[in-house]
């Protein structure tokens, strides 16, 4: 891996556009768009697994001890495996590959007017390692002892010894899968950063880069800068599991709290790593459908950079009650609350962008607006957890669960749906069905709120996480709280069922949707200059850039949009 760059960099600029065999086109492609599709479909498949796990354990919580259709009884060890798998899969195998890898791969070259990534072979290797990591993770379900059951945070000593966590090889496979997955995104990140720096179309200044590209690049930089310590920790933990070393074993001179530092040093920036691309998608969609110039482009850019920088100083707020120095906790309370300022400002800018617009509520626009509305709630509830005093009470309760689902669900699903519905015509050359899209949108959003508002309440009442059954805690085992849990479960069933509509819409439109023109949304950015779907090599004629990406409704122009590549 280390010498890969040396081998590949000669292939950066020229691309063969000759016809390709099935194998080289679909299985081992160098084309960034095909690699993006591989990431997208792998991510969607993993989302199905993640969705199945949540269905099983929510059923167990609503009807403890009942037979879950399609799974069977949920024993406590199975329950732990299910919640661990749900968390890991949804963050590392759904949010990351879809938001960063798939959209980054698809959009960066198209939006900056390049014919491909600068390191196409590293790009292909990145997906292959990612696929391998997914296979390793899935294989851990089938080994003796089952999948890892020590929560996605994998705190040792629980995660370090099979006799503590009751999973054997599964926990090592889990670690290997996570580490491989990081290597895959590391390779992808190198590609994104270098491509955005070196392959921009002539005339594209830094302030002409569409916001989503900036955000993916900033997210990649954050990821690259934060992932190292966790990979180090993962190797140490793997050694503890397999070689009997004692890095995290307090009885033999190790320190279990060390892992928490290494983990959260990555774990919290990770939140912003997935948040920023989602924010970028929303910027693209709302400017297109409000026909408005993005309010204060530079402010958005600076707030995103500020979020990235402050994002490195907030991670210890996950450890307020973990026995760290309380003075350090005071400091991290302050930084955690400070980070709310740039994130809030970004949302204000988006709201201000809507002012004076001409808003068309198409499906992608509905998703993008829903992102802002829902993410606001996720953001403000984070303040309760960032303030050390109230975190004593809320830590590891369902309040936390509801809070981060109000951030992660908008990020990983709402923004992704906005992206898929918005770029679908470009990706597949066909339009999606608006009516089915809207039905899917409304059911998903309403059900989503019905899942997590009850969980805010049960969390505030003291329900803590990762409990397979509350009957041993008399204060939590009350009819009111149980009814809330049942309500959340029913809402979840509705939401999962609604995703069938999405898949129907997706595959039906893929096969028989009306043909899309080059620029169906009348948008400005460069990807709409390419044919739909773009061929290998992307553009018929390599574009040149004359202006920023958000010149909608310019007073000098009859048309309300002004593509970036059109000469004045």
């Amino acid at each position, binding site marked *: 891996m280390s010498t890969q760059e040396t081998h590949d960099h000669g292939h950066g600029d020229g691309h063969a556009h000759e016809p390709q065999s099935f194998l080289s086109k679909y299985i081992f492609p160098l084309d960034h768009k095909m690699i993006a599709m591989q990431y997208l479909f792998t991510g969607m498949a993993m989302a199905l697994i993640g969705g199945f796990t949540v269905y099983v354990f929510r059923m167990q919580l609503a009807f403890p001890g009942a037979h879950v259709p399609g799974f069977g009884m949920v024993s406590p060890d199975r329950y732990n495996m299910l919640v661990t798998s749900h968390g890991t899969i949804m963050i590392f195998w759904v949010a990351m590959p879809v938001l960063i890898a798939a959209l980054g791969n698809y959009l960066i070259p198209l939006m900056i007017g390049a014919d491909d990534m*600068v390191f196409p072979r590293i790009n292909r290797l990145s997906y292959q390692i990612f696929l391998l990591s997914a296979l390793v993770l899935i294989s851990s379900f089938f080994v003796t002892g089952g999948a890892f059951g020590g929560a996605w945070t994998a705190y040792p000593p629980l995660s370090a010894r099979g006799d503590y966590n009751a999973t054997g090889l599964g926990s090592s496979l889990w670690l290997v899968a996570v580490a491989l997955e990081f290597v895959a995104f590391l390779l992808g*990140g190198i590609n994104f950063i*270098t491509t955005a720096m070196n392959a921009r179309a002539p005339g594209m200044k830094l302030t002409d880069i569409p916001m989503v590209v900036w955000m993916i690049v900033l997210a990649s930089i954050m990821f690259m800068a934060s992932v190292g310590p966790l990979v180090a920790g993962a190797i140490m933990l793997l050694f503890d599991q397999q070689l009997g070393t004692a*890095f995290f074993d307090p009885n033999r001179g190790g320190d279990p709290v060390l892992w928490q530092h290494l983990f959260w040093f990555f774990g919290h920036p990770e939140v912003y790593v997935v948040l920023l691309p989602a924010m970028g998608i929303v910027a693209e969609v709302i400017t297109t459908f409000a026909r408005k110039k993005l309010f204060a482009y530079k402010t958005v850019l600076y707030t995103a950079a500020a979020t990235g920088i402050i994002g490195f100083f907030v991670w210890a707020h996950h450890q307020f009650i973990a026995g760290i120095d309380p003075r350090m906790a005071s400091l991290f309370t302050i930084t955690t609350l400070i980070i709310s300022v740039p994130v809030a400002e970004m949302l204000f800018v988006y709201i201000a962008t809507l002012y004076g617009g001409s808003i068309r509520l198409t499906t992608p626009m509905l998703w993008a607006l829903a992102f802002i509305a829902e993410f606001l709630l996720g953001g403000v509830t984070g303040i309760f957890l960032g303030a050390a005093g109230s975190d004593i009470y809320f830590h590891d309760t369902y309040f936390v669960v509801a809070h981060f689902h109000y951030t992660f669900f908008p990020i990983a699903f709402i923004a992704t749906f906005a992206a898929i519905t918005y770029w679908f015509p470009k990706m597949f050359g066909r339009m999606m069905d608006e009516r089915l899209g809207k039905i899917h949108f409304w059911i998903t959003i309403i059900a989503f709120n019905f899942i997590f508002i009850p969980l805010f309440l049960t969390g505030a009442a003291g329900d803590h996480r990762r409990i397979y059954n509350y009957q041993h805690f008399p204060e939590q085992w009350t009819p009111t709280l149980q009814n809330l849990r049942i309500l959340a479960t029913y809402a979840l069933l509705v939401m999962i069922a609604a995703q069938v509509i999405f898949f129907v819409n997706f595959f039906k439109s893929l096969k028989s949707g009306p043909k899309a023109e080059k620029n169906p949304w009348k948008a400005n950015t460069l990807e709409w200059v390419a044919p739909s779907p773009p061929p290998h090599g992307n553009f018929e004629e390599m574009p040149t850039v004359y202006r920023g990406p958000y*010149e909608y409704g310019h007073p000098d122009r009859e048309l309300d949009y002004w593509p970036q590549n059109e000469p004045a």
Partner: protein
Amino acid sequence: MTTVTSTSAVRPEPRPKKKIAHSGVIGMLVFVLTEIMFFAGLISAVTITRSTALMNIWPPPGQPRLPVEETLINTAALLLSGVLLGVAHFRFKKSPELVKAPLIAAMLLGAAFVGLQGAEWVALLAQGLTPQSSAHGAFFYLIVGIHGLHALAAIGGLAYVLRRAQQGRLIASELHTAEIFWYFVVLLWPVIYGRLYF
């Protein structure tokens, strides 16, 4: 809010832009940044584990002390190879042919470093320092081992550069990309040496 017309709607005809640095160099710099963070994680882990040691005794009782003096030879070899690669860098500006000799010397010194390190491992294993024996041993084998793997990979990179030079097809960016990684491996070692051996 008022409407404004004073935006950059018209610009001079764009020209093909110049690159800040070659893609390979940028990619390698970003990769090295990640690697530095990886080793920063490992080194902070050592620092913390050492600070929690019982009675502040390090290495733990019954564990052999690491061969500080012998390792100086390794360290010198590695640093010298870094210097030689620097020589290659400047000779490349004169003629690509001239890089071969310092490159081969740098590779040999690098290989000597890895070899001596291997010999040290064997000796220490015989003295009872194993990954399982204490956190001291575990960190030693983990960090030195991972650094050794990086050194091997970097030697591989240099070998690739050498082959290109022999074919007469070596270009500056290839040399620079390999150089960055080798300097990273070289300069990382004194930090590891200072943190682990003392």
